[in-house]
């Protein structure tokens, strides 16, 4: 590999992950340092971090991975015919595959005086050190270029005690990332920090003194300014010198295809040096995406294409929050949503096209930047949420975070992940020390956001503010199921249906799983997908089910289990209660509790006792342990209640009798209320039904847990039969199309309620077909407790005797 920067080394890391032994790897680096995080040079310049803080891979990393690292050796020639590269000092190396990651060079304005002493660019550790050195000796700095890099340099020099003026050619700062309003706010805050600005000034000449050192800058309009240090930050150019000298086709970058291959099939290129579909990227997130694709092809898997990136920018100047992404300027066919609080210093602009976010500029409050960015990348419709889009993702509030929604405002000790007890400081430390860039990495190393996921937004914010532009949320539409495969959930389901794959091994073989028998995350998903695609035909694989679904009871922290018998509609009888009481006595069950879903929970049952407990209870399984229909909660309704207008209790019993034993991508909770007072809390259920005088209203996608979500109105129907058909059809659609472990609310957010209305409410034939498929699947589905009480799968419950 030629070039030892972030893009190249990232590609190697990805390669080592999937094909550790395929290549003997040698790396040439022109700089005398191992791989460091170039994005964090600004905090180093500002004195907020040290060089040691920003190292990503130290020399030991190369040793550990058997990579020969040749530092301070600049490659000057490629002999493509002989497949060899030559460094300036004569070192030569052969290759089977060559990876070019030569990065970019800062652009120098071709003005007189550009070679004077004290005229610098801002690109690497050497430049940074030179600037730090100059700041100790001299007073007046001029930064030419009011873009991202220029402003970060200016801020750093100011913090180092220099008197700094930023010279910019355009009408406002960062014109490629900001609109005029945001740029003016930015300029005001920077001026408050003591920076000076000269806008619409074109540099004509850099003036020197007799000693050959810079003494000032003269502009086209004749004015002059004093300077002992001039930093040019006017842009970068892909470094294609080496590639061009080897005769590789370049056009403002080394031209590559979607697999990161150059015109020489043995040579790949990634990073800032390339031109892909006519675009050269100067930000780090796209480089990582390229690295992943390139590694995959180098490893000969041949899966994955790089299709270009939507990029976002954050400015790393302490105390200033600024975020920009996509088409922030807007134009014909777009609409703006703007929030402008000049006193509070908050400006937000979202650009929408066809109800999709296509661009965003945030100033002062960037907490939701990564969320907007995700909406952009997923091209998710915001038609239903546009009236509160501006208030951010946490508008509805997540539980368990003290109402906290802004990561930057949190102190180091404040808890982010309430499930695993991870404070903000722990996450920041792990990100810095271990060089983490993705949400997955943070989950693995800190456990934050890995349990209930309600703090995911906060963790993303912390990631974004710690690593800056290097953080790019994973595109949900192309996210693989798990580490065992590159296929998405949708691709897997499609293959199962279209190629009639009827077992987990068959699906894994066909889809070329990388692991021999999957992992604890993909096997349960595959098992459900097969069950859903081939009802009454697929043989369920208990070993691919989580213990709760294998043992048909909920495992507790001490390894005992809990048992929740089904009581249809929450209605029970003296006989059932008596049997429950007897079972509690007989098996010495320590805790009996009433659940939130109107059932009775027996906690602390020994696994060996489960079949006997079920036999003695003689009640059906409550599936309280399964990704399946849990309960239909009801209120007493018109039979007793003086306000009730519909018989909700019996409607609930009917629904539960029709739908129980239904496995689903996640748990499913339902409720039926007998009047709009809604005592059964239908508004926070996957399917909630509310009786009104003229019939029933059906609501879908509610959730009372992690993130409270209010169910959305689907339709109003007249009869009980219609309630069954509409609810059943909706649930079958969810079963067939949702990703495993997505609740109904996530599914609806992904496809949009309109799509669901079209297919359930407007298309009667489709609705009937869906409901028929669900009934077919449920017909003959046994009660798992009854089977096991009769002796099935005995070895699951019996210990080995020795």
């Amino acid at each position, binding site marked *: 590999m030629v070039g030892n920067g972030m893009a190249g080394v990232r590609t190697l890391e990805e390669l080592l992950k999937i094909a550790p032994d395929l290549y003997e790897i040698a790396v040439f680096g022109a700089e005398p340092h191992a791989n460091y995080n170039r994005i964090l040079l600004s905090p180093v310049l500002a004195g907020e971090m040290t060089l040691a803080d920003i190292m990503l891979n130290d020399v030991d990393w190369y040793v550990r991975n058997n990579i020969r690292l040749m530092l301070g050796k600049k490659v000057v020639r490629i002999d493509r015919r002989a497949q060899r590269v030559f460094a300036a000092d004569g070192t030569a190396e052969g290759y089977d595959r060559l990876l070019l990651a030569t990065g970019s060079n800062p652009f120098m304005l071709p003005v007189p005086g550009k070679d004077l002493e004290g005229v610098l660019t801002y690109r690497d550790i050497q430049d940074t050190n030179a600037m730090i050195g100059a700041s100790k000796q001299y007073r007046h700095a001029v930064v030419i270029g009011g873009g991202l890099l220029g402003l970060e340099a200016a801020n750093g020099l100011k913090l180092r005690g220099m008197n700094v003026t930023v010279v910019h050619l355009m009408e406002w700062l960062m014109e490629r990332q900001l609109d005029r309003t945001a740029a003016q706010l930015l300029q005001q805050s920077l001026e408050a920090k003591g920076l000076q600005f000269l806008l619409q000034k074109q540099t004509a000449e850099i003036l020197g003194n007799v000693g050959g050192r810079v003494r000032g800058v003269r502009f086209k309009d004749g004015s002059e300014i004093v300077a002992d240090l001039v930093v040019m930050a006017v842009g970068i150019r892909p470094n294609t010198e080496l590639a061009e000298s080897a005769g590789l086709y370049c056009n403002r970058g080394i031209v590559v295809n979607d697999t990161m291959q150059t015109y020489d099939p043995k040579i790949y290129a990634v990073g800032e040096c390339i031109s892909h579909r006519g675009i050269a990227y100067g930000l780090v997130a796209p480089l990582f995406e390229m690295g992943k694709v390139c590694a995959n092809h180098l490893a000969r898997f041949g899966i994955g294409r790089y299709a270009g990136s939507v990029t976002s920018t954050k400015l790393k100047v302490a105390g200033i929050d600024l975020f920009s992404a996509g088409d922030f300027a807007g134009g014909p066919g777009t609409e703006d949503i703007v929030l402008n609080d000049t006193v509070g210093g908050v400006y937000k602009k979202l650009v929408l096209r066809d109800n999709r976010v296509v661009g965003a500029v945030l100033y002062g409050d960037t907490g939701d930047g990564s969320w907007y960015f995700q909406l952009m990348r997923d091209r998710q419709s915001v038609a239903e949420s546009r009236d509160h889009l501006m208030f951010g993702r946490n508008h509805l509030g997540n539980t368990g975070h003290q109402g906290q929604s802004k990561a930057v405002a949190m102190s180091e000790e404040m808890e982010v992940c309430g499930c695993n007890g991870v404070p903000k400081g722990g996450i920041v430390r792990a990100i810095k020390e271990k060089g983490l860039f993705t949400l997955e990495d943070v989950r693995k190393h800190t456990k934050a956001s890995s349990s209930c996921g309600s703090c995911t937004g906060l963790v993303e914010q912390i990631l974004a503010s710690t690593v800056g532009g290097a953080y790019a949320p994973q595109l949900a539409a192309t996210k693989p199921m798990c580490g065992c495969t590159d296929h998405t959930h949708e691709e897997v389901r499609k293959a199962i249906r279209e190629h009639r794959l009827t077992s987990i091994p068959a699906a894994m073989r066909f889809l070329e799983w990388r*692991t021999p028998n999957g*992992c*604890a995350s993909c096997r349960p998903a595959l098992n459900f997908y097969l069950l859903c695609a081939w009802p009454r035909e697929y043989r369920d694989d208990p070993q691919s089910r989580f213990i709760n679904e294998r*043992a048909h009871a909920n495992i507790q922290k001490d*390894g005992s289990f809990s048992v929740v018998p089904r009581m249809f509609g929450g209605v029970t009888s003296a006989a059932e209660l008596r049997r429950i009481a007897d079972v509690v006595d007989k098996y010495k069950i320590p805790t009996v509790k009433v659940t939130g879903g109107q059932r009775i929970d027996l906690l602390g049952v020994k696994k060996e006792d489960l079949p006997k407990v079920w036999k003695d209870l003689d009640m059906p399984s409550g599936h309280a342990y399964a990704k399946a229909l849990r309960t239909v909660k009801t209120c007493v309704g018109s039979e007793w209640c003086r306000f009730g207008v519909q018989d909700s209790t019996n409607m609930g019993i009917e629904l539960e009798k029709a739908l129980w034993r239904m496995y689903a991508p996640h748990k499913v909770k339902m409720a039926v209320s007998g009047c709009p007072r809604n005592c059964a809390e239908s508004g926070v259920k996957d399917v909630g039904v509310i009786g009104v005088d003229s019939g029933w209203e059906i609501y879908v996608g509610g959730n009372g847990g992690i993130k409270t979500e209010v169910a959305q109105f689907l339709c109003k129907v007249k009869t009980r039969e219609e309630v069954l058909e509409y609810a059943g059809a909706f649930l079958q659609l969810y079963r067939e199309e949702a990703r495993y472990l997505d609740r109904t609310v996530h599914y609806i957010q992904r496809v949009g309620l309109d799509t669901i209305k079209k297919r359930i409410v407007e298309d009667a034939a489709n609705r009937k077909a869906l409901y028929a498929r669900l009934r077919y699947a449920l017909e003959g589905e046994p009660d798992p407790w009854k089977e096991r009480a009769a002796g099935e799968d005995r*070895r699951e419950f019996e*210990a*080995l005797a020795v």
Partner: protein
Amino acid sequence: MKATAALREVRVTGWVRVCRLEDIPPLGARVVHRDAGDIAVFRNAEDEVFALIDRCPHKGGPLSQGIVHGHKVACPLHGWNIRLEDGCAVAPDIGCAATFPVRVENGEVFLQI
């Protein structure tokens, strides 16, 4: 006579027969109760057998109840992956569960306690 011989064998070598191979489901596990802590006996897809103390090094979860994949088991409580060969957690998690020697002879599984 036979029982006495088996008992003597256990006393001398610590090896004890626990079950037939087919008593353990492929990609599954069975539990041996013991006063000094339960032992989980695993079988993978290649019919290799492994024995670990039935306590996850994280929070003591019963590993025998986890999903077996490759040469690993995912703890049912919090999803730590534990290697079946040496009982150690897969990085970045840290911790190990004790292992026990185990062998299969003529379809019979023996465990050294």
